[in-house]
């Protein structure tokens, strides 16, 4: 871990600080899985800037996935889950407001899961799924969207001759990129990724990471990762969580080279967690 700072300086990431507007604003959010008896998230506040990659790191069970799933209200599906305090604003809108439809929210805030989970359908049908849900039927529109999404997900060359084949015939890394293609096909503003590379080998991981740096131009990305190297390679900002609290949040270079909190430093250098 010692040569990490060296490695960092050679990376081609967010060196020039472009001024960026805020897309997600998390304001003192508290979250509970058991009707509010115990809080899993204990008052998190942070902002996610537009067209950047923001990494959430921290030891297992600290609530990274929970926070991520709050952002597109996936936790609504758990009956005992409850937001205990605070608010989340995305594109300026409080996502828990009465007139917000979680379905519409999820069209704007897409999600890629840790375990790649393509549907047992063809590659084409997987990518077209979201658009078909929205009622798009025209073949030319779907064709165009499938091609565009697969190209953005760097999967087009590998998949273009087998669009009608089952998605399950793809390799793990290809399947994860397919899931990313499926997510970007509906043109969300934000893509949430929960450990997207944890089931992938180093080569597939490198491809997905490269892809994220590409996607940053069009999307705002929030990623949960357990790999310090990955966070430092691809993210512009890093948030360190511990036991449901946000310990430190700032530009990745600063968090990794000069963290202001001792816990962060210990975690990053591998002394705990």
């Amino acid at each position, binding site marked *: 871990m010692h040569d990490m700072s060296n490695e960092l300086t050679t990376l081609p990431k967010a060196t020039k600080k472009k001024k960026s507007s805020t897309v997600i604003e998390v304001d003192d959010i508290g979250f509970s899985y058991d009707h509010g008896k115990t809080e899993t998230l204990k008052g998190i506040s942070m902002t996610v800037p537009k067209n950047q990659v923001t990494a959430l790191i921290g030891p297992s069970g600290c609530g990274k996935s929970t926070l991520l799933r709050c952002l597109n209200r996936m936790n609504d599906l758990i009956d005992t889950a409850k937001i205990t305090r605070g608010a989340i604003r995305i594109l300026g809108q409080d996502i828990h407001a009465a007139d917000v439809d979680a379905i519409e929210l999820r069209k704007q805030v897409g999600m890629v899961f840790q375990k790649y989970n393509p549907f047992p359908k063809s590659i084409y049908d997987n990518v077209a799924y979201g658009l078909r849900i929205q009622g798009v039927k025209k073949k030319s529109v779907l064709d165009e969207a499938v091609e565009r999404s697969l190209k953005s997900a760097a999967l087009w060359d590998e998949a273009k001759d087998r669009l009608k084949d089952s998605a399950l015939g793809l390799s793990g890394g290809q399947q994860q990129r397919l899931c990313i293609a499926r*997510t970007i096909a*509906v043109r969300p503003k934000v893509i949430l990724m929960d450990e997207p590379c944890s089931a992938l080998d180093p080569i597939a991981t490198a491809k997905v990471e490269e892809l994220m740096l590409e996607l940053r131009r069009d999307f705002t990305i929030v990623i949960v990762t357990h790999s310090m190297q990955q966070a430092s390679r691809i993210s512009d900002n890093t948030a360190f969580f511990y036991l449901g609290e946000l310990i430190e949040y700032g530009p990745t270079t600063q968090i990794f080279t000069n963290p202001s909190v001792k816990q962060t430093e210990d975690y990053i250098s591998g002394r705990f967690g």
Partner: protein
Amino acid sequence: MTASENPFKAKRSWTQFRGKLGVGTFGAATYFILFCAVLIFGQIAYKGLPTFFKSEAPYVNTEFFTSNPEILRVWHDAEGNKFSMPDKDFDIWREKNPDAVILDPHALNYSAGGIAGPLVGTALLVFFCMIIALSIGISAAIYLSEYCGKGRIMSLIRLSILNLAGVPSIVFALFGWGIFCHAAPVIVDHVDERSLFAFSIGSSYLSFQGWGTSLLAGSCTLAIMVLPVIITACEESLRAVPGGFREASFALGSSQWQTIRKAVLPYALPGILTATVLGITRVAGETAPIMLTATSTDKTDMPMQALQNEGVWAFFTQSVQALPFHIYTLAKLPDDPLSKPMQNGATFAFLLLVMGFAFISIVLRNRVRKKLKW
């Protein structure tokens, strides 16, 4: 190291012996069941097959499958030659041979003709029963597995459904007889005196007088009887669909219903078809419920005639013949060798019908399964 020091040398022990004994017992039990099944099936086939064929061209006894049960007339002449003939042929024969001597004539019920009516009746009962049971059962299973939570009331409901599966069929039969035959609502012009109560709607009445002994009452009774099996099996197969599909679908902006329809139901289909097989095999063989609610012994015309002559409602409220009940009737006939071919043929045809239903569903399921793999 030398061979004599084999560290993996087998030890003869009591445990090993017990293991072998266990495997032997399980194997013996399995083969015993197989033996019984082959014996039963072989016996039925051996006795029943001859009824399917005849000695002259075209060798297949088509009449057996295309005509209704008939009376067989039996007699002998002065020389002691035995004669037997279906009722409808007898009159023609009598006209042609007006002087024939007929001694000791008697009639054997159901011992001539075929099983067309019961065959069609059973097929109709099973078909409509499964339509009713699957539409209610799948809806209930979707509700149980996708919409409702895991609360105490819900587990009570699940437990009740499971327990219903063990209720004897005669109980369902009596229930169906009470509800569908005698209390279900119908729209009529003139209220029957057996009606429980009736209101007038416009010029007609909605009368709770039941559907009588009918195809509809029988199908509904059978449907209620298999519902527990169908609901439980469908719920299991819905739950077996990986949660990742649901999450992925929701994350792409689907509503709950879209998710169920596009990301859950298609993948639960093999399981649902298995449930259908289970249901069909249970329903097709039931005798008690249809005896009380659907069949009558004096029914002789084919079900389709009512549809052509009197319309859809008459079709559903007519009584039907059914194979299991027909076999029951045949079995209770006075013992006569001339009645045997019909008995054996009907039994074998029934077995084939049930196996055919199951076979179609299994083929369907395997084809669906092959298409969907994860």
